[in-house]
């Protein structure tokens, strides 16, 4: 089964990014970076004009963005910028990320690509750590969404640029994470595609919280969606040992905090569980103290 890292490294956007960064002809990548930087400067100027305070970053939708970017990047006209992000990509050393769909206007294609390339190194940092520590899908999502919040906090005007929200690579990445619990996930009736769609919405919520409150930390922004992320990606039935821990906790809490008249457990059930626990204790002793023989089971119960 391929690892999450492997799957994230072969998404369509990951392959595009690798090819684009490697394009040497005519300094193609450098010229693109020049346009992204110009876009950031245009948006920062726009944000500085509009912003009422430090707290909330309203959405930004600058008009004639290609012309402004061209001017800011000191191109003689808007034509070189337009050519890079129009839907006809013939002869371009780097094909635009948005593909050849004429419905995607050049300005929108530039913004989408700028968001992706700005977020990409944050994503790389997450992949390096998460893979090294063999994170669970829920931990991967936590790390990813925290890094997404960090990106949005570091570059609020770009995150707020229409359509305000995360870079579009999040769609593919969330699909990878949503599919990953499938390896041991037996309890969730929700199909991976539905989980992915919900994770995308939650990623949007994380960015929205950062745009609403400039002081919120990445952890604070992630915490707003933590509960649901955990429910979507936790593997409740992955390990019987985990189930025992959870059930023991649930049962003990219900016994300790039961309501008046509530019958949490019958005497017969209690006696049955006690018997099982006796046997389980003997079995577990061998694991808890490796190298030692498990102690003998309770008298009279050995052959059951």
């Amino acid at each position: 089964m391929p690892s999450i890292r492997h799957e994230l490294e072969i998404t369509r956007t990951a392959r595009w990014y690798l090819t684009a960064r490697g394009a040497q002809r005519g300094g193609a990548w450098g010229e693109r970076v020049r346009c992204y930087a110009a876009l950031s400067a245009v948006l920062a100027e726009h944000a500085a004009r509009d912003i009422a305070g430090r707290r909330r970053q309203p959405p930004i939708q600058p008009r004639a963005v290609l012309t402004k970017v061209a001017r800011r990047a000191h191109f003689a006209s808007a034509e070189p910028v337009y050519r890079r992000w129009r839907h006809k990509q013939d002869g371009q050393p780097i094909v635009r990320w948005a593909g050849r769909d004429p419905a995607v206007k050049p300005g929108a294609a530039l913004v989408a690509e700028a968001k992706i390339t700005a977020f990409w190194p944050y994503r790389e940092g997450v992949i390096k750590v998460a893979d090294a520590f063999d994170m669970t899908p829920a931990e991967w999502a936590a790390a990813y969404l925290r890094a997404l919040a960090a990106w949005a906090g570091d570059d609020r005007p770009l995150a707020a640029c229409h359509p305000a929200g995360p870079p579009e690579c999040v769609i593919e990445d969330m699909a990878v994470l949503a599919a990953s619990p499938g390896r041991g996930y037996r309890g969730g009736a929700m199909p991976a595609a539905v989980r992915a769609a919900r994770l995308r919405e939650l990623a949007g919520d994380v960015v929205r919280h950062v745009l609403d409150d400039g002081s919120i930390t990445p952890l604070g922004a992630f915490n707003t969606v933590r509960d649901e992320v955990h429910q979507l990606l936790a593997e409740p039935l992955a390990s019987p040992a985990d189930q025992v821990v959870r059930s023991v906790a649930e049962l003990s809490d219900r016994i300790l905090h039961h309501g008046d008249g509530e019958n949490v457990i019958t005497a017969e059930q209690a006696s049955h569980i006690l018997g099982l626990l006796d046997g389980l204790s003997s079995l577990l002793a061998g694991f808890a103290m490796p190298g030692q023989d498990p102690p003998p089971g309770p008298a009279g119960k050995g052959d059951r």
Partner: protein
Amino acid sequence: MTPDALAADEQARAAARLRGAAEALSVLQRRAPAEQQRACRFAMDLLAAQVAAADWTPAGLPGPAEPAQRAGYLVPASHQAVLRLARSAMMLYCAELRIADRPGHWDRLAEFFARRLPPSDPELVRLRERATCARVDAGDTSPEVLNDLLGALGFHRARDGEDAYLTALARANLLMACRQRRTGADLASSTVLAEEEVATRTSRYGAGHPVTLVARSLLTLHLLLQAEASSDEAERLGLAGRALAEITGVRAARDRLFGVTSPNATRSRRYEARALLLLGQGERARHCLEYALAFENAHNDGQETPGTGQTLYQLARVNRALGEPGKALDQAKRAYRIFSRHNPDGTSARQARQLIGELGADQALSLEPAQ
């Protein structure tokens, strides 16, 4: 694009990679202490390999696990991404440091960046605030500490606004320090502040958001302390009942969010037990703490942490109330041993020592021949 501009872009990307790595490493703070230590060394390897000209020894952090292999574009030590990664590394490093030793390390880290950043840099202010919180954790609630926390609160109020996230965190930090002082006036006023904080966070983030749960948990602690200090039985029972209702909700939410063996779920169980003891339900309190201890051991792989000490200390109190001084004394001694290893001059060690003294006196009294 000029080579210089391209190099600047590459450097910004290297910084962003560190930023992403810092967030991912912070997720590992929920793992067992041994894993946190490994994560800390990983962070140090990143800092050593990718930050320009910085010797991390004076910053209070451990050395890298492997000799630095520098490659690519180096990020200046004054960059905010470096500060945040170093901060994550320190939080992970704390898993292996005694509570009493942590303030010194945080102070060194803050000084390291104070030499590189302007005093009003918001990240530096937050780092100093964190260093002050480490002092509070170690039992220092001196006027200087309270002043520093008040200063941080003022900074966030002015910069971010009254109901901003960081302002709420700064208010909570101040509340914790006030609570630690444990004088009657401080307790009463900080309970009112804690109630306000819960209301603010609930309306802004919802009752189940982890940041609201922290405020609710803090409110519970204030209620418990007030109840424990009260000589009026009706008031004591009222406060304890309120505390139990609140913390049971918090504990259920934390079980769901972080898992039943997580440290903050265990802390909630300890508070539940304290409330139960005040309500005269000693047996239930004992069971609650025994489970808390079992979950704590499961989380820490049997390693004794200050949290284990707290659970043992509460168990000792419960067993004393249930008329089992022998058990109570054993548990109080174990708690004291843990506390004195982590923070010999701290409040917890002092309380455990006092309990041992009282239990010794109880035992001596019970051995005296009847008059």
